[in-house]
């Protein structure tokens, strides 16, 4: 399974005041708060970790059917700027993050080998939904493939496995 999450950094700056009292404490674990405090660019670290949690949550939600606002249960293990894992109640997800001046984008998978198999698809591609979960039906084989869609501000990313 796969999940993705993109953050438009310019929009995030308008929408969120991450320095607000209580904001980091409610969303991030102690370890993550320490990573943010120590980061050279704290804002980038906030959104880097947040995009990992969001991408991982999409898989967790699909795997378990559990819906909730559980950012602190999705604990990030930060290997480096672009790599890491997110653990949530014994589920482990692998993450790859891309950072540019304009956006932060994370893809999460249940297996590391999936990263090389992920295909990016055109955001205009017609997808269907069951219980709010998007999928794509291959026109030739009629096999349905899971899709993960992320949109924020100027950016859309749609991927399939």
């Amino acid at each position, binding site marked *: 399974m796969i999940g993705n999450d993109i953050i438009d950094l310019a929009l995030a700056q308008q929408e969120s*005041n991450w320095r607000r*009292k209580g*904001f980091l404490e409610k969303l991030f674990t102690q370890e993550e708060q320490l990573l943010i405090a120590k980061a050279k660019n704290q804002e980038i670290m906030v959104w880097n970790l947040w995009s990992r949690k969001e991408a991982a949550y999409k898989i967790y939600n699909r795997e378990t059917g559990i819906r909730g*606002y559980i950012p602190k249960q999705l604990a990030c293990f930060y290997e480096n700027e672009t790599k890491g894992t997110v653990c949530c109640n014994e589920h482990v997800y692998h993450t790859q993050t891309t950072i540019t001046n304009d956006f932060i984008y994370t893809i999460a998978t249940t297996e590391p080998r999936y990263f090389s198999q992920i295909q990016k698809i055109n955001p205009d591609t017609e997808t269907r939904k069951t219980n*709010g979960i998007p999928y794509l039906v291959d026109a030739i084989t009629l096999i349905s493939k899971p899709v993960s869609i992320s949109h924020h501000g100027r950016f859309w990313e749609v991927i399939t496995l």
Partner: protein
Amino acid sequence: MNKREIIEHLKAIIKPYIQDQNAFESLTEETDFINDLKINSANLVDVILDIEEKFDIIIDNQAMEKMVNVKAAIEIIENHLAEK
């Protein structure tokens, strides 16, 4: 504070964060913050912090986890107010 008053305060709190005006105007207890009102998940924490400030309550992790729709928010606020 009765339920109607709680809903009015709640509507005032969520208004700056909503991205679907129609869903906001036809808001019911079943309205979902993210799926219906299209509140950005990173802004849901602002809704929670604003609720804490407005009602002078503390929403812990367990309560926060349930905070995905209007109904859950009302229940959490009611429970906290009842404890006061």
